[in-house]
């Protein structure tokens, strides 16, 4: 029953037991399973690339709402910031994703299957008509994965958006009042003052907080597995676990340490690069600002 290596990149990989060390490693590192690992690195990077701007947008919206002069939007902004910040991430991830998924399916069920007579909740079971399933159970696996990926993006964005909102809210308050008064003195409307004076100047106050969030976001990506996305930690654990010769052409002992060391290096290098870039951005934003770090 020895599972064959199947499609391999190198032709000599058909019988790994006969190979020298280097050739063995080249075969081992190019198995379909390892491709899953490499793909998951791209997944994580894509998640960060989409989540960071989305969360920033949510944060900006939240901060603007929280500063608003209308009671309802101010209440909404503050509610969003304090509730999401107050709920432990893991609970939010478990509860919110299931709730939004079931909420969407429930809504689709009401629209698409008006003559469905069975109840949606049957004991523990949540059953909507097949046409209301999201994604449809007939959809290919990649659709399910993309759907899972975007629920992950949405969840991360909402969570990190709340923190970003608080940072931006503070940054907006930190812009010297005199700057805004000067804007008003020049005859700018409140909207003009906001976009031309406040927003360009707040970034320098927001950046330390936002860079913290970015670092935390990078480190939070392993939570992806909670959302059913196979991330790098899942693959490291799966690939590193010991394999017996009966079930793999590449039997090995417990190699999880090495895989996790690889992840450690990845995260360290990634955060180091981020730090360097953020520092450059900070210097750039401080230019001409009335802060201590500014170079006039």
């Amino acid at each position, binding site marked *: 029953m020895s599972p064959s290596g199947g499609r391999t990149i190198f032709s000599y990989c058909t019988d790994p037991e006969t190979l020298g060390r280097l050739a063995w490693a080249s075969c081992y590192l190019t198995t379909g399973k390892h491709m899953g690992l490499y793909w998951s690195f791209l997944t994580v990077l894509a998640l960060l690339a989409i989540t960071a701007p989305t969360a920033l947008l949510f944060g900006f919206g939240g901060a603007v709402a929280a500063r608003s002069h209308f009671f309802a939007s101010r209440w909404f902004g503050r509610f969003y910031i304090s509730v999401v910040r107050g709920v432990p991430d893991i609970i939010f991830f478990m509860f919110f994703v299931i709730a939004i998924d079931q909420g969407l399916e429930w809504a689709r069920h009401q629209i698409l299957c008006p003559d469905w007579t069975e109840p949606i909740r049957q*004991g523990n079971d*949540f059953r909507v008509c097949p046409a209301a399933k999201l994604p449809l159970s007939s959809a290919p696996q990649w659709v399910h994965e993309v759907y899972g990926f975007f629920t992950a993006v949405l969840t991360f964005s909402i969570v990190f958006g709340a923190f970003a909102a608080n940072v931006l809210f503070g940054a907006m308050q930190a812009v010297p009042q005199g700057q805004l008064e000067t804007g008003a003195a020049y005859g700018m409307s409140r909207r003009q003052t906001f976009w031309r004076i406040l927003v360009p100047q707040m970034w320098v106050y927001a950046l330390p907080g936002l860079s913290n969030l970015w670092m935390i976001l990078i480190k939070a990506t392993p939570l992806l597995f909670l959302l*059913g996305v196979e991330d790098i930690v899942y693959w490291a654990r799966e690939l590193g676990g010991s394999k017996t010769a009966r*079930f793999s052409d590449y039997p090995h002992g417990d190699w999880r340490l090495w895989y996790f060391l690889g992840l450690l290096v990845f995260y360290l290098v990634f955060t180091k690069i981020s730090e360097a870039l953020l520092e450059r951005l900070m210097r750039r934003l401080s230019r001409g600002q009335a802060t201590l770090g500014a170079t006039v």
Partner: protein
Amino acid sequence: MKKLILSAAALALSAGMALAASHSTIRMGTEGAYPPYNFINDKGEVDGFERELGDELCKRAKLKCTWVTNEWDSIIPNLVSGNYDTIMAGMSITPERDEVIDFTQAYTQPDPSAYMALSDSVDITGGVIAAQTNTIQAGFVAQSGATLVEFATPEETIAAVRNGEADAVLADKSYLAPIAAEDSSLVLLAKEELIGGGVGMGLRESDGELKAKFNAAIQSMKDDGTLNALIAKWLPDSAPF
């Protein structure tokens, strides 16, 4: 023009057929970390006893099936909330689980649970025993008087024995036997525990129709001996039907 109408009709027909077929795609949930029952092979696909059995059952029940993996801890909640339609993950049929989900008839005989340790002289009544969370073995150890340490994955329970965190691990014998066979430092103890009522396929309680289909398919495989052939191939230590 005639050609156009004809091809449009063909298109509509095939779309209709695709739609009809779409309702019979069954998503099969598994853990993918419990060889020989289910594991991820070198190609990165679900493989093992349950993969082969599940594919054959789907063929006999005339269903289109796809496989998805989910971690063990949340495998029942995700079935109930509809992320997939069945569980084939070496899950023993127990009264506690049966309250939440339904099971088909068993497709393995009750598999004895075995202890694996670094030496024969381990104290399994008063020592530290590792088991995977939410398994029948974890439930058993919790009541046996030994100290239970639980892990999320089967792999970690073995690692705990290797590094001395636990004195022994209690798991299905068919999972432990291939590991003990290849690692001379690990031994299976003579004492075995008869717990569990055989492994079955888990389904939502409201999915009676699907359950009937799979029950019939399992029965037909039992009747013509193909199930026994699969058991002999993947679970050589297990009793046939």
